[in-house]
């Protein structure tokens, strides 16, 4: 049974790749591009697009640097991103029937 009142889902997070990125970053202070790519199983270009979208709304912070001679991109969640993910999970719960207690 689905409750009558359903909370709206944040359209920015409501995409499997962006949800994966946000879920990883919520427990990691920093994650690098390759780790996110491996976790989401997507391509460089696709992941970059999703990361740019999350950065644009202020949910994540992207830092580009160098490890030795290799370029390294790392991402971290902002406070706004953390709050947005918490809201998203709460909204998801409104789609589930309340457990009988």
């Amino acid at each position, binding site marked *: 049974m689905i409750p009558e009142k*359903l909370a709206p889902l944040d359209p920015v997070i409501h995409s*499997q790749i962006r*949800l994966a990125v946000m*879920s*990883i970053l*919520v427990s*990691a202070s*920093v*994650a690098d591009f390759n780790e996110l790519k491996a976790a989401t199983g997507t391509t460089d270009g696709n992941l970059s697009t999703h990361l740019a979208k999350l950065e644009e709304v202020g949910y994540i912070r992207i830092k580009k640097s160098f490890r030795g001679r290799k370029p390294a991109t790392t991402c971290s969640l902002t406070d706004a991103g953390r709050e947005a993910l918490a809201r998203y999970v709460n909204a998801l719960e409104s789609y*589930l029937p309340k457990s009988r207690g």
Partner: protein
Amino acid sequence: MDEQQARDDIKYIREMLDRTRRSTADSGTLFIFWGFWIILALIGNYALVYTHLFRWIWVDWTFFSFSGWVVTIWHSVRRGRKERIMTFAQEAAAYISFACGIAFALAAFALPLLGAYGYDVISIVIALVSGVLLFGLGGLFKAKFMLAAGLAWWLGAVGLVLIPGDWRGLGIVPLIIIGYLVPGFIFRAKYRNGK
């Protein structure tokens, strides 16, 4: 979005959180290294005592401590570069480990040199700090075997008081095995299984 999709999304979030947790398990390398390194230093210590070369004991401990620090810093920097993800628990663990490292240096060198206590008390203070390190890390990584190792160090610290001063160094060996080597090997096995 329906109920099933919501369940799938929540399951997906959990999977990602689990993935992060698995990918950041400690390798245990430094515990194993320090366990063997201190045992080697103790063997050196007692070899010098046995051969009546007491004045060289400080060289033994300075060499093993300093070289141990160099290896620890080198390993930590190298791992930090390789690490593709850093969790808050790992960050906190790094701070606890560094803080205990400073406490070890103060307890083993600075405080006895300043006359705070005699050299026979060092192993007791080291055991106390080791208990803080293991118990703290055990709490962070939710590892019961490390919490138990922390308790073992504290019990050991009390037990060391009952051992005559000259033999306390040997009394700490079983504690190193229980409190460093065993947790180190358990971490190593978990780390390899998680990869």
